[in-house]
């Protein structure tokens, strides 16, 4: 990426004042990236900005309170940072934000689907339009648009919303006024009973690793999650689809009015359960009722932490 060197320069400048800067670097094969913790000068060179940088690094911030942390953010990640700041879960003084214009990230599930079997990846060449992945000596050419994460296709915040350093040219804000919920709306056309069956079927393979929760930047209870608590006893340890679904509802509800739809829950899921839809549904209703989007304005109060005496958009049942 063009501004990668510029970003390294900014980090080099800021690093003496910081304990660590979190960015991304290459991972176990050329098709994957991984979060990269930069402690000193010698770590800077490894930094890479690419469409493989799927991880939302804001997830690490609440666990690093008290440290001076620099964080490189995509536009969507910056919303998580804003939301964390809105809720005073991190302190603005402690974090230094590095922004860049993001043109979208790759959805590994889509790559998997397109290639069929992603075995021994030898190389992965990316251009603005396409990527060529060589697996077991066989090149697979994929259009970037085919494997772009869903959220990126209708991205409304490609540039970091707040930043202390911004490298590269800002992408003029693309302007769909509303988020894109087409997939969700399609699902909502199914009969109610089909929806119920859908969730039971999808969640049956859940292994209860709670990666969805651990990857979520706004799931800040961490070691005190009610998923494992015995008192209160919300969930049992039985291998029971009811408890698995219940957990997803707990997560979605605890995210109501807070979720920035970074999609980390679904990306982290090792068995590809489409759980982001539950959060999207919550967000869609929050937008409808409270005209509110999480993580876009530092001064906003999340809707469930406030109220109005007269709610314009709530029509109660008339008995």
């Amino acid at each position: 990426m063009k501004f990668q060197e510029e970003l390294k320069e900014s980090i080099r400048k800021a690093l003496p004042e910081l304990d660590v800067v979190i960015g991304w670097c290459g991972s176990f094969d050329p098709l994957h990236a991984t979060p990269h913790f930069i402690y000193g000068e010698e770590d800077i060179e490894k930094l890479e900005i690419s469409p493989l940088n799927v991880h939302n690094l804001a997830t690490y911030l609440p666990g690093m309170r008290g440290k001076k942390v620099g964080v490189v953010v995509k536009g969507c990640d910056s919303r998580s940072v804003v939301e964390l700041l809105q809720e005073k879960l991190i302190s603005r003084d402690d974090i230094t934000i590095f922004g860049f214009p993001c043109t979208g990230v790759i959805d590994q599930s889509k790559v998997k689907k397109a290639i069929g079997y992603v075995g021994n990846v030898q190389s992965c060449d990316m251009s603005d339009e396409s990527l060529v992945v060589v697996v077991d000596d066989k090149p697979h050419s994929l259009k970037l648009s085919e494997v772009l994460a869903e959220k990126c296709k209708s991205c409304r915040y490609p540039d970091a919303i707040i930043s202390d350093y911004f490298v590269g040219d800002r992408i003029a804000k693309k302007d769909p006024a509303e988020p894109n919920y087409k997939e969700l709306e399609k699902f909502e056309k199914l009969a109610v009973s089909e929806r119920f069956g859908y969730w039971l079927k999808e969640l049956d393979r859940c292994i209860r690793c709670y990666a969805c929760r651990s990857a979520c930047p706004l799931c800040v209870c961490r070691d005190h999650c009610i998923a494992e608590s015995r008192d209160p006893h919300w969930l049992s340890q039985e291998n029971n689809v009811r408890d698995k679904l219940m957990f997803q509802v707990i997560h979605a509800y605890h995210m109501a009015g807070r979720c920035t739809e970074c999609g980390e829950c679904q990306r982290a899921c090792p068995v590809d359960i489409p759980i982001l839809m539950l959060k999207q549904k919550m967000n869609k209703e929050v937008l409808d009722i409270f005209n509110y989007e999480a993580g876009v304005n530092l001064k906003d109060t999340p809707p469930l932490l406030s109220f109005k005496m007269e709610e314009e958009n709530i029509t109660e049942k008339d008995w």
Partner: protein
Amino acid sequence: MPVLEGKELRIVGFLCNWCSYGGADTAGVGRFNQPTDLRIIKVPCSGRIDPLFIVKALMNGADGVLVSGCHPRDCHYSEGNFYARRRLEIMQKFLPILGYEPGRFEYTWVSASEGQRWQQVVTEFTDQIHKLGPAPKIVGPEASDTLSLMQAALK
């Protein structure tokens, strides 16, 4: 076998201690006829109700859930029901995505003096649930992993 088996559905009601529980009591003292499907759980305030209670009740076999608190501006704790209204409204709008029909869950306000309103709310809500019939159920853990449960649900 209980006499009402098959005729009755399971409805769970979360009622605030200060208004709606009193309202239900008033209806009882006034000997207003009411359907008997409702099981009441008294809570200190509608603001105490975690909307997840509603989901938990449905997933554990309830066919309908009713929440009732003090009228807005009448909350014993001044603002509990204002917060509750936002949370409950969100949950009500959310539930259909899971496969629970709209109408399985309602919330309303009944004051301690409104025995008649209570009677009307219970009667109407019970009717509404009977029209919807039993809610989709998730049965025991054994059913999981055999896929039979899912197939049954899809039928």
